[in-house]
């Protein structure tokens, strides 16, 4: 049986001449240094963690820090850090020889982080004798503080990835936002002494969800080539 496209010779058609807009751009062409993914990743991670520690210091470190179960404290902090770093790595650093970011994996990891920290907060929150117990009604600033911590990684990553994600920039942005929200959660874990599970799950975990949503709303236009 003859295959439908056998013998169809699609010799490339001659391209149109460069448009006036492109010619004008070329006349004023200036060097634009290509991006260096690992270097950018290092800057985003270092600056974000530095900012999280600075913010925790500014807002004061939680009073029950030394009394909390050490293993739980360290493992939970490590989980926040992994939630931050893992989506960032796949988003900022493409496979060798490619410049296409792995936005799908980043979005998936971001989604897992968002679900994981809400559920984890609701089920795994621990207190110490010195912990102050509050309910959701207590007036606190965890949400804006967490989002403030997330601002630095979002800004730096958007600067690093300008125009790099032509495909699904909204999903990529959601992954980035969730990662940034995790650094917010990391900071809150050092700062907030409210050990109530609902607060830790809904508010601290909610920082990840809200950061992902805000990022998906406001940053895609910078991530896609315009």
């Amino acid at each position: 049986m003859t295959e439908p496209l056998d013998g169809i010779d699609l010799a490339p058609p001659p391209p149109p001449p460069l448009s006036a807009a492109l010619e004008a751009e070329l006349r004023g062409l200036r060097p634009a240094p290509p991006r260096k993914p690992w270097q950018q990743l290092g800057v985003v991670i270092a600056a974000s963690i530095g900012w999280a520690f600075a913010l925790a210091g500014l807002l004061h470190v939680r009073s029950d820090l030394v009394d909390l179960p050490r293993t739980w404290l360290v493992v939970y902090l490590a989980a926040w850090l992994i939630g931050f770093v893992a989506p960032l790595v796949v988003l900022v650093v493409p496979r060798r020889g490619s410049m296409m970011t792995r936005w799908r994996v980043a979005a998936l990891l971001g989604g897992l982080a968002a679900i994981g920290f809400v559920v984890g907060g609701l089920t795994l929150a621990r207190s110490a004798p010195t912990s102050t117990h509050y309910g959701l009604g207590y007036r606190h600033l965890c949400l804006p503080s967490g989002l403030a911590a997330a601002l630095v990684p979002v800004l730096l990553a958007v600067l690093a990835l300008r125009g790099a994600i032509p495909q699904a920039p909204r999903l990529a942005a959601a992954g980035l936002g969730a990662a940034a929200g995790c650094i917010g959660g990391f900071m809150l874990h050092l700062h907030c002494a409210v050990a109530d599970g609902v607060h830790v799950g809904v508010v601290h975990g909610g920082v990840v969800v809200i950061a992902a949503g805000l990022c998906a709303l406001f940053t895609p236009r910078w991530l896609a080539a315009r």
Partner: protein
Amino acid sequence: MTAADLMARYCDGDAEAFRALYAEVAPRLLGYLIGMARSRPLAEDLVQQTFLKVHRARAAYIRGADPVPWIYAIAHRTFLDELRRGKRAAATPTDDGELPEQTAVLSGESAVVDAERPVVDRERTRAALDALATLPTSQREAVVLTKLDGKSIIEAAEIAGTTPGAMKVRAHRGYLALRKLLGARS
């Protein structure tokens, strides 16, 4: 000189490298966009828009990386944006996100079906492209990229922003539909 070398030189400020990159990539890109848009003038405009976006986003390039899939991905997105805006294609996405089919406009104006080819070839090519035009956008794209443009499944999936598995299914279904259509016509 490879596309990666040209892109690197272009990022270093060499306008001639951009022209060489354009000369190398634009014909293939134009063929892809004609296959998708089914209108040569629209495809030519999309090529220009794509390269303008490449120019503006050139700092996103990574030295040593192949820029061609990235350029195709920008072209793919530019094509979909153009369709969605409906400025020239007069098409809007349906509720389920699929793009409605348009009347084929390839026939006489496509460089693919040029007058210098033998009549039999021309007719076969035209019949194939007309059949291609009836496929859903996602299947048409899969067939154009994998069968006509010679991209691998992985490359095509990267360009279309889907998984290799989904691309394989789309290409297979599109090819089966094409075979059926052409069989029915002959």
